[in-house]
């Protein structure tokens, strides 16, 4: 369980997150929806330890292994898809295992040998997703993970992600209500300001 209590984050004088209290239940997916610039990514960054809150506390992530699909792909572009994935793995994993996972999101053949800088936006996105799914983690943050994927690929990738996150604590940020419906779980509606209601979907 991740417990967020009276969380505050300010940029200059603007309170991007203002007194947010919410619980992310263990082994469940919690979806955050809201307009652009309302603090969704800021919340994710604080949960990942990349931004320090100006007030309030986050409990339950101490010593936990984290994983994320960031809003940007954040791939090492001179390395191949396989090398990018291997970078985040704790132990040696058979190449076959990585290739199987990449194949699940429709990546294979010559594509996986190319430096990721030479891949298309959608292909890079899928590499970033497989990397996050394969990393050994207790908490996963998905910040608009399916952005830029075409409809057909998106369906397959969503099915892959749903399988991989089963039983894990996940924060899922999206603008798409259909994505929220597909993954189910809990739902956070109103950021900024105190969260009005959190309800299981």
């Amino acid at each position, binding site marked *: 369980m991740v417990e967020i209590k009276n969380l505050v984050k300010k940029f200059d004088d603007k309170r991007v997150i203002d007194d947010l209290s919410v619980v992310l239940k263990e082994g469940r997916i919690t979806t955050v929806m809201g307009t652009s610039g309302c603090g969704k990514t800021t919340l994710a960054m604080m949960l990942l330890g990349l931004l320090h809150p100006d007030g309030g506390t986050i409990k339950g992530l101490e010593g936990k292994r984290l994983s994320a699909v960031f809003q940007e792909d954040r791939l090492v572009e001179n390395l191949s898809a396989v090398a990018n994935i291997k*970078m985040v793995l704790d132990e040696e994993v058979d190449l076959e295992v990585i290739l199987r996972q990449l194949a699940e999101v429709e990546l294979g053949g010559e594509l996986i040998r190319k430096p990721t800088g030479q891949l298309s936006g959608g292909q890079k996105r899928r590499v970033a997703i497989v990397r996050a799914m394969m990393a050994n983690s207790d908490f996963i943050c998905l910040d608009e993970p399916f952005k830029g994927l075409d409809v057909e690929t998106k369906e397959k990738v969503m099915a892959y992600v749903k399988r991989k996150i089963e039983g894990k604590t996940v924060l899922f940020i999206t603008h798409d209500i259909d994505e929220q419906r597909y993954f189910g779980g809990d739902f956070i509606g109103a950021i900024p300001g105190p969260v009005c209601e959190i309800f299981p979907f």
Partner: protein
Amino acid sequence: MTNSTSTSKRRIQRILVLLFWLTVWQLAAMAIGQDLFLVSPIEVIKILFHHVQMISFWSTVAYSFVRIISGFFLAIITGVLLAVISATNSIVRAILEPFFSVIKSIPVASFIILVLIWAGSSSLSVVISFLMVLPILYTNVLQGVLHTDRKLLEMAKVFHIPFRKKLGAIYVPETLPYFSTGCKLGIGLCWKSGIAAEVIGLPTGSIGEQLYQAKIFLSTGELFSWTFVIIIISFSFERFFFWFLGHVERRLLSDTIYG
């Protein structure tokens, strides 16, 4: 047009440009008619041909080469180490900043005289080329490390990527272009400053000493031929160094380090 055709066309163009300037030089020397003022390229080639047959020529070249290049490599090692320490520690960076600003603004002649008093003439060119290259390497590598993609570093932090992998996959590729630029600037400067130091300090058996002798005896032919030797060594070393660096770069930027 294929790549190889355009490359050979460029090569021919370069040779023609070189021949043009050699002809201008030869005609100018013939017009002046006095070797003391302007020696002809043919005369320079004759002197060079005479030199290369002597063992003393090769030992002179080796003497200067070893010292100047040692200074260059010492500067690379020290510059990279100090830049990495400075990038991770702002106090060290603040302490080193005035030191490097002072080194950069002091005239090389002042350094030469100072080092001559402190260390003598035999190691003069090592110290001078080291001091001239060090600030360039330090500044460039520091800029490279400081400009490393913050978003990639955040990704590495979230996934707990160990330092060894982070170094090879993020820091090195991001810093290499800055390092290469530093080396390119440094190589030219180490030869210019190293030879200038030898001309002032006159270490026995150095190229600088030969240039000084040429000045004493007003031998323009000797001056030109030794200058030509310096250009050839500097150019050859630069080509070799960047060929080697390119090889290392390709190795580091490939996936092979991850199996």
